[in-house]
C-alpha cells in the first residue's frame, strides 16, 4: 500500500509527468480518430432518420457528447483544484488550468449546437430555460476561472484563487444535470439514464456513445498538450527543464 502511495506522488511531480504526457498524447489522438470516425459513420450512415425530427436530430451526435464533457471536465478540474488546495501539489494546479479552456470549448459547443438544434425544433435559438441557463452559467464559470487565473501573476496564488472559484461552481453541475427533472423545461429529458433503458434507437445510442468517447479522448489529448506547455512555463528555472532534449537542438 505504502508503495502505491509513493508511486502516485512520483507521477505527481511535473518532472516525471512531462515526458509521460508526451508519450501518451499520440495514443489519445489515435483513439480520438478511431472513435470519431466510427462514431461519425454510424451517426450519418447507419443511424435511421428520426420519426419526428427528420435529419435535424443528427446534431445529437455532437450536442450530447459536448454537454457531457463540459460537465465532466468541470468535475475533473474541480477535483485537481481541490487536490492542489489540500495537498499543495504543484501539478494539480497546472492540470486544473490546462483543463479549463477545453471545458469552455465543450460548454460553448453545447450551447452553439443547442441553439442550432433549438431553432428548427422549438422555433427559437434560445430560451431562458433552467437547462440552458445553467449550462450558460457553466460556460461563464470556465471563462471566470480562466480570467481570474490570468489576472494573478503569482502562479501558486492564481491556483488557489481559481480553486476556490472552481469548487464553489461545482454546485452548478447537479443543477444542470437534474434541471430537466426539477423544473418544467422546454429542453427534453435525459436520452440516456442510469436507471432506465435508453429512449432511443440502438444505433443512435451507439453513435452517440462513440462520439462521446472521441470527445473524451480529444479532451485528454489537448489538455495533456496544454499541461506540457504550462509545465515548461512554470518550471523554467528548474534544473530538469534545462536537461530536456527538446532544448538541446
Amino acid at each position: 500500500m505504502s508503495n502505491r502511495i509513493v508511486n502516485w506522488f512520483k507521477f505527481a511531480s511535473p518532472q516525471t509527468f512531462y515526458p509521460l504526457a508526451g508519450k501518451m498524447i499520440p495514443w489519445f489522438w489515435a483513439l480520438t480518430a478511431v472513435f470519431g470516425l466510427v462514431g461519425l459513420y454510424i451517426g450519418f450512415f447507419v443511424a435511421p432518420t428520426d420519426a419526428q425530427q427528420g435529419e435535424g436530430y443528427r446534431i445529437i451526435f455532437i450536442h450530447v457528447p459536448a454537454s457531457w464533457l463540459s460537465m465532466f471536465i468541470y468535475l475533473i478540474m474541480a477535483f485537481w483544484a481541490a487536490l492542489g488546495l489540500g495537498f499543495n501539489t504543484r501539478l494539480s494546479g497546472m492540470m486544473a488550468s490546462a483543463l479549463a479552456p477545453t471545458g469552455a470549448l465543450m460548454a460553448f459547443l453545447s450551447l452553439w449546437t443547442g441553439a442550432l438544434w433549438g431553432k428548427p425544433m422549438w422555433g427559437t435559438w434560445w430560451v431562458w430555460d433552467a437547462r440552458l441557463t445553467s449550462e450558460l452559467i457553466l460556460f461563464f464559470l470556465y471563462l471566470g476561472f480562466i480570467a481570474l487565473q490570468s489576472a494573478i501573476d503569482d502562479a501558486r496564488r492564481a491556483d488557489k484563487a481559481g480553486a476556490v472559484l472552481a469548487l464553489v461552481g461545482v454546485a452548478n453541475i447537479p443543477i444542470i444535470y437534474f434541471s430537466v427533472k426539477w423544473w418544467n423545461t422546454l429542453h427534453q429529458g435525459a436520452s440516456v439514464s442510469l436507471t432506465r433503458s435508453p429512449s432511443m434507437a440502438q444505433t443512435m445510442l451507439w453513435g452517440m456513445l462513440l462520439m462521446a468517447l472521441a470527445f473524451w479522448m480529444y479532451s485528454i489529448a489537448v489538455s495533456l498538450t496544454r499541461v506540457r506547455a504550462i509545465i515548461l512555463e512554470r518550471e523554467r528555472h528548474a534544473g530538469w527543464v534545462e536537461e530536456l532534449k527538446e532544448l538541446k537542438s
Partner: protein
Amino acid sequence: MKWNSFSEFLAMGGHALYVWGSFGACLLLMIVEPILAKARRSNALTELKREIAARKENVNENF
C-alpha cells in the same frame, strides 16, 4: 446506405444549415484548439532556449 445521392446527404432533409453549422463549428474549434495548445508549448520552448542562452552568456562574461 440510407442516402440516395451526395446532394441529398448535404441537404440533410432541409436541415443543412443547422446540422452542418453544428458539425462545422465543432470541427473548426477542434482543429484550432490543438494548434493553439501546440503553439503555446513551442513558444515556451523558444523562450526557454533564449533564457538558457542568456544565462550561459552571463556565466562566460563573469570569467
